């Protein structure tokens, strides 16, 4: 699937976000933490959302779920169409029927997202009872089945375990079991493996991939790790300072990034089998992006990336570039995109 760029989609998108804008009111005044963000997720597809801290990737996910704490946050514009229906216009009781049932979410910190005083079985079963009107016994049965599906050994016993009795990797499996218990059409996974060790991360990514294929479930995967994106996603959205700066099918993005920020990120990471700094005669430096991520309250005029960008001109200071098609399915918000190699 190479679907998320806003081109003519043969399949109607499952999730179609248009012009989503979320404002945060900070001490110094309001800032647009999510600023006119548009993207699609096709049924069964995987969209990666990449960016650094404060770029708005998590707030985009929370806005889609309508879980923005208000105040300080408020969605001030845009549409979040799920199966054609704008979730932003749903009354809260109806939204609650969507959340957890059709769109589910997995967070980075499984310990803080699980309730320490309920067993994992009760927590997995809660959604099943609420959304699918299952009995207590059915919910428990479903919980055991879900624990089995996410690869937890001895699920019949673990169903009565409390979160603190499980390791980090196991808790993340429980979170996934909880999210998938009602067979959602879309899973939003916000840094689901960031807190985990690399061998456990590999297990969880493999698990998500398998469950996604079995259920034909769409996934919106939020991460800062370009490696995770390359291995898991069909299409990618790159965010910087609240806006999408590049959007492309995964192959195109990695083969020839168009936005200087995307290209800079890729250059700054050493690849595996690069002993560049340590091997005598090869003391190369990494190609770092200069400067730092600007705070939302003090963005430069025009393009937010321009003072870290080696391609910036006077135009970039005057005119904020719009997200426009550049080449084959690839969109970038840049006046001077990086030429294809």
């Amino acid at each position: 699937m190479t679907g998320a760029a806003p081109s003519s989609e043969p399949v109607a998108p499952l999730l179609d976000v248009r012009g989503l804008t979320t404002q945060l009111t900070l001490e110094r005044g309001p800032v647009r933490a999510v600023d006119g963000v548009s993207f699609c997720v096709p049924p069964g597809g995987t969209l990666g959302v990449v960016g650094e801290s404060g770029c708005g990737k998590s707030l985009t996910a929370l806005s889609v779920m309508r879980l923005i704490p208000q105040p300080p946050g408020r969605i001030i514009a845009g549409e979040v169409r799920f199966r054609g229906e704008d979730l932003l216009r749903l009354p809260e009781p109806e939204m609650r029927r969507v959340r957890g049932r059709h769109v589910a979410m997995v967070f980075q910190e499984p310990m803080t997202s699980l309730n320490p005083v309920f067993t994992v079985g009760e927590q997995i079963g809660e959604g099943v009872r609420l959304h699918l009107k299952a009995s207590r016994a059915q919910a428990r049965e479903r919980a055991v089945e879900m624990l089995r599906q996410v690869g937890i050994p001895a699920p019949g016993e673990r169903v009565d375990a409390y979160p603190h009795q499980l390791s980090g990797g196991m808790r993340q499996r429980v979170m996934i079991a909880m999210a998938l218990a009602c067979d959602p059409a879309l899973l939003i996974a916000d840094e689901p493996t960031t807190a985990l060790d690399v061998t456990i991360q590999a297990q969880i990514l493999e698990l998500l991939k398998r469950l996604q294929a079995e259920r034909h479930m769409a996934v919106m995967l939020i991460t800062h790790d370009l490696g995770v994106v390359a291995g898991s996603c069909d299409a990618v959205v790159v965010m910087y300072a609240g806006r999408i700066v590049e959007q492309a099918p995964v192959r195109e993005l990695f083969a020839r990034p168009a936005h200087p920020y995307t290209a800079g990120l890729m250059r700054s990471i050493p690849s595996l089998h690069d002993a560049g700094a340590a091997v005598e005669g090869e003391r190369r430096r990494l190609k770092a992006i200069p400067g730092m991520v600007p705070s939302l309250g003090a963005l430069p005029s025009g393009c937010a990336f321009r003072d870290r960008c080696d391609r910036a001109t006077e135009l970039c200071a005057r005119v904020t570039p719009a997200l426009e098609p550049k080449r084959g399915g690839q969109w970038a918000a840049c006046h001077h995109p990086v030429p294809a190699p």
Partner: protein
Amino acid sequence: MSEPLVQVRDLKVHFPVRGGLFGRTRGTVRAVDGVSFDVARGETLGLVGESGCGKSTLGRALLRLLEPTAGSIRIDGRELTGLSQRQLRPLRRRMQLVFQDPYASLNPRMTVGDILGEPFAIHGLARGAAREEEVLALLDAMGLPREARHRYPHEFSGGQRQRIGIARAIALRPDLVVADEPISALDVSIQAQIVNLLVDLQRERGLTYVFIAHDLKIVEYVSTRVAVMYLGRIVEVAPSRALYAVPRHPYTQALLSAVPVPDPERPPTRQLLPGEPPSPLSPPSGCAFHPRCPYVMERCRREAPPLYPLGGGHAAACFLAEGDSQRSEPAAAGTVDAASPGGAGVLAQPPSRG
């Protein structure tokens, strides 16, 4: 070839676990359990492994910020274990730690100038204008503006704070810097800046690094040699390039195959390990890795493999490597593998569990 700057022999750091009504000792966490290695002057030893493997404990014990239970640590030929805090003080300026979280490790009530001047004050070096000069030189070397000395840590970004943390660590021109996950709290676009800074400083000042991290790509990039830890022990050590090109221990192989590669044309060939690292409170019998190992043999359940020297400074603690071992008998603890070129000695030692 000169003597290695750091020589660690059979180092153990055990923590008692207390519990129950009277706080009786219920068991022992063997956080570091018989580790030996050398670090040559001017090199970077990377220390990798997953959480709980003991790499941070080892880093802190190396600087005597944690009390070793047994074993020997020699820095520049001087034995550190057994020294009192008072005896340690003059040595402290020669070995420093860079922390993961530069915010938590900088005093929020001190200006950057005071933070950087403090090491000089503690050790009674460079007073008045001379100290001011040192602070300015440090700020210049870190790429921080000179006005930064009048400001407080919270006024800086994460990357700048880490620069301040590094400046404090190198202020007194130490020989050894232990960097414990120095970039993992930073944004991706800032990580490369800090790595470059560390590499530049090493070159300019001849620093020796022990670089502790879980990011295998960064460790490969910065390290001369890399040691892989699992459950309190070194399971493999080799020159960086050799370790990544031909990992010999099944755990290292799995660890490397699990690294997400930013290339969609190369679909992940992950070698998935079953299960999770066991608790250091009750390590498995024999080789600690055997319950997760795809090549487990009967012998692995009973016996812990020693670190077999494989030539070229490469050593692995796995029976599968035994046939390639450079010696018929594993060397006694405390002898340096003479086969390793460049004097970056790798140690072979028999298991000494229990």
